[in-house]
């Protein structure tokens, strides 16, 4: 087909709430105390290089990667290590974290890195440099970026896809990054292209951000290897399978990775940080975070030091006493996590902090039986039958869900729960079912 609309089938159109899109990135001051979990990424936790009582300089590595599937940590501020102890994480469990007391009077200058000669690096060396910078996927999943840019053995990658869709309501941090750091984004993509050996990169951006499309295309190299492409504004456009389909028309086969269709995908802010940090030989010490929600006095996009406690961030943004009537969400409202404690820090994968009044949230609705309206089937981007899956989950027929109704293909985008008039917690049922199946498979 010569002309194809850049989108995927089904999906939903939630209200955007992107009022922070016009607000330039502002720096958030240093909190008096930073909490740095050793596992901010998927994979093995980092190994601390410092001990309690040790002074650290901003930008200095304070934990090293433990193997390939791991990332180092860098000090987000000048200060002294207070302790290395268990601290609450967003999901609830307490995790090993480095607690840093920040020196208030410090100038907070970043320790200089050792800039490598990036033009001479081999693909392996680039991947290593990305790992040394401690870069995890900044879209939310926090998968180590260097692993995501290394094609599996035997796979030939012809297209690197950069996810600038930002399809979640409220979030605008990637939008601002594309507008304000276009050179970093392009430089990062050029490095990533060399790392994965792909000849071209496509940046997928929802068509509610045409200014970002234009900005990146203006900064793209003249050889045409990098191109920004507008895609339809529709949730979940920024999911891997849907964006790959929207941009290339390729479907990732069930149970296979995107590399099987010659594609690798990474988030756009990840690229910006690769482009900025790798040539400078520095590490991730901050990221752009959207702080938004109806009750936030000073919403916006903040450059937040990694490790900043949620409590400090919310006070600074003017979310008065986040009591039980509000709910703090880390990430977007569709796939983000409800924060269990305000002592939870901003980590590398935190794209947004939303303060939602209780009445706007999907709670306390009466749950009706499924009336088989079929709305979930009409919106599921994966072509599943959530109605049937939900019924089977109610009867605890988890095996049938997995074997006959492709439960494993669900990536929990939440479209079905969003539209369900009976308010059945479908996604939650599917999570439980997957968990049970995983346990049973493990024996």
């Amino acid at each position, binding site marked *: 087909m010569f002309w194809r609309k850049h989108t*995927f089938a089904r999906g939903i159109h939630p209200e955007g709430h992107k009022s922070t899109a016009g607000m330039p990135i502002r720096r958030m001051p240093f909190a008096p105390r930073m909490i740095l979990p050793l596992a901010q990424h998927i994979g093995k936790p980092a190994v601390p290089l410092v001990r309690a009582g040790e002074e650290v300089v901003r930008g200095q590595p304070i934990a090293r990667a433990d193997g390939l599937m791991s990332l180092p940590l860098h000090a987000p501020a000048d200060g002294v290590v207070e302790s290395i102890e268990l601290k609450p994480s967003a999901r609830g469990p307490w995790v090993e974290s480095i607690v840093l007391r920040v020196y208030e009077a410090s100038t907070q200058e970043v320790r200089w890195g050792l800039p490598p000669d990036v033009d001479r690096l081999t693909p392996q060396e680039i991947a290593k440099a990305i790992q040394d910078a401690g870069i995890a996927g900044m879209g939310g999943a926090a998968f180590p970026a260097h692993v995501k840019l290394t094609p599996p053995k035997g796979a030939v990658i012809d297209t690197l896809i950069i996810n600038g869709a930002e399809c979640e309501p409220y979030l605008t941090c990637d939008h601002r990054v594309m507008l304000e750091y276009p050179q970093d984004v392009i430089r990062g993509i050029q490095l990533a292209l060399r790392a994965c050996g792909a000849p071209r990169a496509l940046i997928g951006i929802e068509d509610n951000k045409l200014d970002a499309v234009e900005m990146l295309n203006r900064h793209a190299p003249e050889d045409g290897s990098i191109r920004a492409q507008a895609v339809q504004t529709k949730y979940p456009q920024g999911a891997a399978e849907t964006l790959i389909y929207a941009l290339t028309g390729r479907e990732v086969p069930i149970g296979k990775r995107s590399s099987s269709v010659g594609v690798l995908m990474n988030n756009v802010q990840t690229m910006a940080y690769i482009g900025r940090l790798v040539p400078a030989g520095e590490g991730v010490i901050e990221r752009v975070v959207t702080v938004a929600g109806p009750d936030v006095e000073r919403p916006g996009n903040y450059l937040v030091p990694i490790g900043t406690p949620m409590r400090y961030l919310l006070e600074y943004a003017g979310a008065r006493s986040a009591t039980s009537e509000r709910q703090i969400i880390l990430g977007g409202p569709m796939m983000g996590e409800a924060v269990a404690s305000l002592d939870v820090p901003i980590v590398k994968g935190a794209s947004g902090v939303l303060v939602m009044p209780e009445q706007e949230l999907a709670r306390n609705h009466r749950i009706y039986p499924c009336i088989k309206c079929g709305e979930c089937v009409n919106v599921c981007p994966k072509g599943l039958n959530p109605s049937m899956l939900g019924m089977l989950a109610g009867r605890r027929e988890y095996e049938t869900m997995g074997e006959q109704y492709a439960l494993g293909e669900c990536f929990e985008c939440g479209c079905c729960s969003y539209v369900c008039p009976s308010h059945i917690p479908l996604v939650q049922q599917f999570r439980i079912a997957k968990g049970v199946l995983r346990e049973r498979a493990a024996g």
Partner: protein
Amino acid sequence: MTTPRIELRAAPHLVKGASVERIMFHVVLALLPLCAFSVWQYGLSALALIVTVTAACLGTERLFGRAGNTLSDWSATITGLLLALTLPPSFPLWMGAVAGFAAIALGKALFGGLGFNVLNPALVGRAFVQAAFPVAITTWVPAFAPGRFGEFIPTTFTTPLMTPPDIAVWAKHALDGFTGATPLARWKFETFFTPAQDFLTGAATASAGETSAVLILLCGLYLALRGFMDWRITAAVLVSAALTAWGFQLYDAARYPGPLFVLLSGGLMLGAVFMATDMATSPVTPRGVWIYGAIIGVLTVMIRYFGGLTEGVMYAILIANALSPLIDQVTQPRVFGAVKEKKA
């Protein structure tokens, strides 16, 4: 010190704001103009019938419904109104109450209530009284009888075990030239083609709510535009019925009426807009919806043309209802990424 509450709060944190009550309430709203039109046509008796049947449905729902207030979801109200609209206006009230009871008790509560019923409750109720009271359900009265707002149709207050008064005498007296047969019956037994405009104005003899195809379509259009009704089902029913009728007309135009007659006569329009689209008893898959609608359309025409009954919509929908789980089973959507292996 207060005990900390542990709450499960899982994504997605936003919802569209759709709800069962809202959908059902709007269906009730869309049915009200039909009820009003029916009362305007048939007077007090139609009003009494609608109220009685709906009350019977609500009472039965209250009796058998699950714990908690199941009346507030409006589904029993819909069943009541729809059922009343499918009955002849002269239908005795006590029989209407029986129909309402059967609809909810046999058609819905027996299966486990809202969402679990296999068959459309209103049609189960109608099928029940069709079998139980074959005479009363085929006794028709003229529309726009003078004095319809001052007196009841004599059969309305028939009690059990009582011989109903002869409606024909009353009908003759009420309106001259009344034949007492529906257009479908007149076609079937007299090969008489009722002119199309009679259907549009409500002048044709019919059940309480089936007389104005235009009004039904408008109400359906409202629901479809607001997203409370699956227009694909209605479209599939009407198109398939029209095509089938057209085929027969091509074969023998003297014997078979045209598509327009088939679409406008009897309960097809009401069935296609309000009955076939019942969510709980129709398929959920996109392809299944079209197949289901097509089955109803074709079966309706087949029953009308070749069955012993003059009307086929009810059984066509009930049969399709029963088939819909099977239709769902064989029309599961293609899972994204279920790509056929390329041939080597």
